[in-house]
Structure formats: structure tokens, C-alpha cells
């Protein structure tokens, strides 16, 4: 076989914590093949094949491995979203955001899968998919609107074919399947439409929710063109993935009768290839696919979280050398695919983005309470109207009486 299939790493540190975590329980993760082409040291395999459902699959047609411009652009996206993440964290620290959800460590999983999407595809994120958002044309500042507390949305999902963040874990997975069923119907009605698929993003923690199961049952039953993209970043806030599953999450797919693959989520080239293959599979009527991107949440769960309470710094350090940016940079440099000028320009671009982001955040319009009454229902609603009138009069009373604080 070309390419390499390395067994998923075993983390001694995690082993210790895991033992501490469960006095009862047979939580142990079986070793499993994980698809990878770009190794942590920056060396790249020439191709990638695997056996899926007993059939050999050659991912080579989907691999960008030899296209220097494309590799640089993947690196650019990852670099920019990491910079975006850092700037957002800073904005939160400075009190400009209520909360921030960092993605550091998951850039390859997100950029790789996001870049695999076609414009006509539609993705359903959870809340950490800033990288995917950027690949869909969502503006960095739009993402921050939610975290500044001025909206629960932030962008027009219909324009970007990228749904709003869904905070109730796993709920969006069913929406993705329903949306895929709609794509299927549209295509039956008009076969000239471009083939399309939807993607459901969710985490290792969310995988335990009943909605994930039901979405896989429906997807299999209707053979819906949907790709389930699970970022197994090892943690659900403070709970290690071993509490959710003792075998690789990719194996869940077997029970529903569709393919499941585990890919090195820190290898942007492999993630992109596998996702492109999966999307092709779904779009062409072959049904759903589950991808488990094996990665690591290098930062806190959110800016409100304190990972030192539950994970050892050694654990975090162990992942440093597998950083998705570091390895692609090493590859670009060692193969002479990008020169110093490229990295300098990128740094400048990132700085400019950060400055623009900061300006945009500081000048964000805050909605007024009155506007909140307008979006509860699409059609007139007497109770909402009555309460709005009450609110207006109540507020006006303060103006009259000068009572307001």
C-alpha cells in the first residue's frame, strides 16, 4: 500500500487519568488504522489507499499532495484561522467578547474538510467550526457577533451554505440529514442540478447523544447524501473521549451499514482527500459516510474553562509536535514549495485581518430590545404585539418620568 497507516497514538498520560476517571469500567481504546499522508515531521507519502467495507479505496485522485499552490493555500487558511483564534481569545480577555471557543489544534480537520466542500454543499457546524466557516466565506467578524452577545446567529446561512452554530449538542446532525433528504428530492425533481451533499460536524462528546444515532439511522434508511464529520479532539470539556467510547468512533458506521474512516485530523492533506472522497460517495448516490478526524484540542474548551483542573500539561505537550501547521510548514519549507516571502506576506495578511477584526468587533451594532419582538414569529402574533406595546409604553414611562437608571 502506498501512503502510511499508522496506529493511533497511545497516551500514557491519558491512560493514567483514565484509570483515575473510572473505578469501574472497561474503557480502553483499541488500536486502529488511521489514514495519514503528511507525517508530523513534514514528510509526505506519495499516495493513500485503504480498505473500506472490504473494498480497496484509492484516495490518490483526491490528494492535493503534489500541488504546491494548493498546499500553500491550505497552509494559508490554517494560518489565518489560528491567527483569528488568537485575536478572538485576546478580545475575550479584554472584555470585548463574552466568551470564546478556541479551535487551536483542529485547523487541519476544519480547513481540510471545509476546503473539500463544493459551493452547492451545505455544512452544519456545532460551535467550534470557525475554520470551516472561513472556507465557506463567512467573515471573521460575523463569527464573533454571537460571542459578543449581539445575536445567536451571525450570518445568512443561505448565502454561505453554512448553517448557524447549534449549541445543543448533536441537534444539528438531524438537520443535516433532513437537508440531505431535501437535496435528494430536489435532484429527483431536476436531475440537471449539480450533485450536492450536506455535512454534519460534531465532537467526540456529542457522539453519545441519541440524536447522533437517529441521524445515522435516518441517513442509512434514506441513503441520504450526508457526510458525518466527527472531530474527536479527545475531550468533551473535562471528560476524555474514552468515557464516550472504547473503540474508534469511526467504527460506529459499521452498525448502520455505511463506511466509516478514521483520518489523522492533524494532517490537512489526508483530511481533505478523505472528505472529498466521502462527499463524492454521498453526492453520487452511494449514501452516507462517517469520518472520524483524530485530533486534539490544544487549548481550553472555552475561555471560561480551566484545563489544568483535568488534564496534565504533559498530555498537552505530547501533542505539540503533531501540530497541523508545523508539519505543513516543515513540508513546504523542506520541499522548497514556499519561500520566506510567502510566510512573511501571510504574517502581514494575518496582522491586517486581526486589525480589521478588532475594528469590526468594536463597532458592532448592539440590537435593541424592541427588535427582539420582531423575529419570534414570521406572521403577526397578538401576544407578541401586546407585549411589545407594553414594553414600549413601559420604556416611554421612564423617559417621561426620568426614572430610568
Amino acid at each position: 500500500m502506498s501512503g502510511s497507516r499508522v496506529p493511533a497514538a497511545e497516551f500514557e498520560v491519558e491512560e493514567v487519568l483514565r484509570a483515575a476517571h473510572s473505578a469501574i469500567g472497561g474503557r480502553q481504546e483499541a488500536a486502529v488504522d488511521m489514514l495519514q499522508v503528511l507525517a508530523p515531521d513534514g514528510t509526505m507519502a506519495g499516495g493513500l489507499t485503504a480498505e473500506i467495507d472490504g473494498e480497496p479505496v484509492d484516495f490518490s485522485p483526491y490528494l492535493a499532495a503534489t500541488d504546491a499552490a494548493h498546499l500553500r493555500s491550505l497552509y494559508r487558511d490554517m494560518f489565518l484561522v489560528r491567527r483569528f483564534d488568537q485575536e478572538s481569545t485576546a478580545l475575550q480577555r479584554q472584555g470585548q467578547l463574552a466568551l470564546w471557543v478556541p479551535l487551536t489544534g483542529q485547523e487541519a480537520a476544519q480547513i481540510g474538510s471545509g476546503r473539500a466542500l463544493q459551493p452547492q454543499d451545505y455544512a452544519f457546524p456545532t460551535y467550534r467550526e470557525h475554520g470551516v466557516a472561513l472556507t465557506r466565506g463567512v467573515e471573521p467578524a460575523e463569527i464573533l457577533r454571537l460571542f459578543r452577545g449581539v445575536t445567536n446567529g451571525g450570518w445568512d446561512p443561505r448565502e454561505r451554505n453554512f448553517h448557524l452554530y447549534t449549541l445543543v449538542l448533536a441537534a444539528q446532525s438531524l438537520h443535516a440529514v433532513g437537508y440531505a433528504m431535501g437535496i435528494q428530492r430536489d435532484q429527483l425533481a431536476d436531475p440537471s442540478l449539480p450533485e450536492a451533499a450536506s455535512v454534519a460536524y460534531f465532537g467526540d462528546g456529542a457522539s453519545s447523544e441519541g440524536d447522533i444515532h437517529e441521524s445515522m439511522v435516518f441517513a442509512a434508511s434514506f441513503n441520504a447524501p450526508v457526510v458525518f464529520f466527527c472531530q474527536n479532539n479527545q475531550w468533551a470539556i473535562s471528560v476524555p473521549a474514552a468515557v464516550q467510547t472504547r473503540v474508534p468512533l469511526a467504527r460506529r458506521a459499521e452498525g448502520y451499514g455505511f463506511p466509516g474512516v478514521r483520518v489523522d485530523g492533524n494532517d490537512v492533506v489526508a483530511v481533505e482527500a478523505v472528505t472529498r472522497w466521502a462527499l463524492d460517495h454521498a453526492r453520487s448516490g452511494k449514501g452516507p459516510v462517517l469520518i472520524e478526524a483524530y485530533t486534539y484540542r490544544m487549548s481550553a474548551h472555552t475561555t471560561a474553562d480551566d484545563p489544568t483542573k483535568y488534564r496534565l500539561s504533559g498530555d498537552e505537550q505530547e501533542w505539540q509536535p503533531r501540530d497541523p501547521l508545523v508539519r505543513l510548514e516543515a513540508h513546504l519549507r523542506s520541499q522548497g514549495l514556499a519561500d520566506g516571502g510567502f510566510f512573511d506576506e501571510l504574517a502581514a495578511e494575518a496582522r491586517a485581518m486581526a486589525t480589521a477584526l478588532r475594528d469590526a468587533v468594536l463597532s458592532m451594532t448592539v440590537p435593541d430590545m424592541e427588535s427582539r419582538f420582531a423575529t419570534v414569529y414570521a406572521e403577526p402574533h397578538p401576544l407578541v404585539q401586546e407585549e411589545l406595546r407594553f414594553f414600549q409604553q413601559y420604556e416611554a414611562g421612564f423617559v417621561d418620568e426620568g426614572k430610568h437608571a
Partner: protein
Amino acid sequence: MATMTIAKAINEGLRASLTQDPKTLLMGEDIGELGGVYRVTDGLKRDFGALRVVDSPLAESGIIGTAIGLALRGYRPICEIQFDGFVFPGFNQITTQLAKLRTRSDGMLSAPVVIRIPYGGGIGSVEHHSESPEALFAHTAGLRIITPSNPQDAYWMIQQAVSCEDPVIVFEPKRRYWLKGEVDTSAPAGDPFSAHVLRAGTDATIVAYGPLVPVALAAASAAAEDGRSVEVIDLRSISPIDFDTVTESVTRTGRLIVAHEAPTFGGIGGEIAARISERAFLSLEAPVIRVGGFHMPYPVARVEEHYLPDIDRILEALDRAFAY
């Protein structure tokens, strides 16, 4: 004009919706070949095919959740929940997703999903088949809730639910499915979110909805024999509630009885009593009296007749109201 049962009227209403809008589809458990356990979707799969009338896997969250996804893609799914007591696995999708999508998107997205739920007791059935959970949905903003009490309303209200841009839950009074009435298929019955005064009166008002409407009308007839002129209002819409119609009535009659099968405690009757007590405070000659289920799980079939509000329970409440 045609005579038909409520079940048939809903069937015809669904048929009309399926015919008019190719984006509509039905989803649910056993709604295809079987035509639903109450045969409300009888013949629809035969006539519209398996793509429009979909026997889903057995999972209520899955039904509602995929319906939301279909709606985001421009479809208008009409979901059937098999019985009132089985809606709860789908509660999360209804409450946190379906109801909130419009607000979450600042008005950009709609989810015009219809959820049909046969509800109520009086059918001698086993656990979970006789409940009235409407209050558990009414408290959540973003949803609309209607319940027809006769074939004419049933025919039109289901279609109006389908064409509404907001999500609508249609509670269908299952023990009245075989109640017959005239249906005029030529003109809609007006605003589905308005209450209807079914019987005029001057001394007291009874508000009821769904399965209890015939009971309220019978109670008013019985009261008339005692010389009491009782107005009867069919609420029709539980969210929003047409408080204007109810207030107008109570300011004339001075007394209000609210009847529903759901337990009184925390039920929708409390909302009506509270709001009307506020709106018509100076007109009320007696407190609003609620007639409803007791604070217990719906009891076993052999005693349900003692649990369900009936004519006598409403008359007793009227007696109390007149005693002030």
C-alpha cells in the same frame, strides 16, 4: 358541502395540501401502507407515492429533526406523532430547535414544519395514549398550537397550518375523530388563530377546546334548562390565545369556566384565568373556575370517566360560579 368525520376532514385537508404544494410531504410512523393507526392518512401514500408520504424509522427526534432539515431546504414537512404520550423523545428538537430557529437567525430562516398529534383520553386505552400535553408546548415561544373540534375546522385548519410560515402543532382530538359534520371545501374558516363563539349567552361563559367542545355545548344546553344562559367559546388556538374574544364575552357575562382534559395545575386554563382576571377584573362576578384533569398521571382506562371533565363537572363549576 359534504358530510364527513374529523378524521376524513383532516385526510382531505392533507390531500389538498399535498396536491397544491409539491414541497409538502408527510412523515411519521405507520402513515404509509397502514394509513396511520387512526387511518387519518389513509390512501395518501397510494395516491402521492412513498416520496411524499414517508414511513420513517421509529424515532421521534429523528422525525422532527429531519423535518427541520427538510424545511431548511425549502420543503414543508407534516409530521405525525403516533400518540400524545410519544412526542417527548422529540421534545428537544421541538423546544430548542424548531421553536427557536427564526429568532436564532434574526428572522432569516423559517421552519414551517407541521406536527400533528392525536391527543386526549376517553378511548379506553393503555398508558401514554390519552394525554393532553398542550401546555408543555404553549409555554415555548416560536410555536403555534391549534386544535380543531369539528370537521369544518379540521379540514381548513390543517391546511392553514401547512401554509403558515411558522411551525404549527396541530392537536387532533382523537376521541372525536369519528364525529361527523358538514364541510364546506370552498372557503376557509377564517383565521385559524381566532376563537369562535359557538353559542351565545348572557350569564356565564365556558371556554373549551378540542375534545371538550361538545361537552361544553351539552353543559350549556343543560344549564339552559336551569334557566342559565351560557355562552360557549371554542378556543381553537392555544398559542396564541384569542384573548380579545374571551374578554369581550366575559365582560358581558361576568363569569368564566375554562375546561380542558389536561391536569389543571400548570395547565393552559391557568393562563386563561390569569389573563382574563386581569383584563376583566371589574366585570367578574366570580373567580374564573377551571375544570380539568387531576394532578396525577392519566389514570387507567377503567376509571378514566371519573377523571375526564364531563357535563356534570362543568355544571358543578357553573354552580360554584353562580354562588358568588
